[in-house]
């Protein structure tokens, strides 16, 4: 408060002759919104109940087929 003095504009209050008297805290950037789908997916990960997707299983089957072929 600047009792007894004329009220200064914000910029004048914080910068006089190049000195910062009352540095203002920078506003924090807003947190990125998490979509419900992502939130649900994260919940599943955190609860340890994510079934491998069919695409991942298919990739893994091919990977193991190749490994077995090479080992034979």
């Amino acid at each position: 408060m600047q009792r007894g003095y004329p009220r200064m504009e914000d910029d004048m209050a914080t910068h006089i002759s190049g000195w910062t008297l009352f540095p203002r805290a920078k506003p924090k950037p807003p947190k990125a919104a998490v979509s419900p789908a992502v939130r649900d997916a994260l919940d599943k990960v955190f609860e340890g109940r994510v079934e491998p997707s069919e695409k991942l299983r298919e990739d893994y089957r091919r990977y193991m087929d190749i490994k077995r072929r090479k080992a034979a």
Partner: protein
Amino acid sequence: MNLPLDFNSISLRLLADDCPLGGFSCGEKEIDEWVHRRALTRHQGYKARVKTAHDDESGDLLGLYSLTLILERERELRSSDLFKSFIQNGYIPTLHFEYLGVCQTIQNGGLGKYLTLDAIAIFADMAEHTGIPLLTLFPLTERLRAYYGERNFVSYGSNGRMMMSAETAIRLRDGG
């Protein structure tokens, strides 16, 4: 589109000192620069471990990937019993799938998938033996983000990374 590769003539091994890294090009500037300038020193210094794929006959380098351990901020994740025992001073260790590159001339032949699954298989083994809870990665493009999203990687936090849980990798490996 290239033909599917003959995986019978491709071998994976840990990066060797005499690996011909200089001629490698996957077309992604960041990855190529890393391969040419940093891959060997990081591998030799155990700051990351690099695995390479070679043609058995010619010895040509066809592709490679690297894994490393990073500390992820707890606040990027959500508090969970899954990780509680790992959190130290606000950080949690994760296995990070750092770089993956496939030689331009053989892209779309399946080697990228093969290398990715090799990394996931290593993660599953590590998770079983050490309990490390997450595999993380940072997709360089939105197309890759969608690709990994279809394969159980979930976007999290504000840093653009994605993660897969140890449970998923172990279930995948064990057929559960």
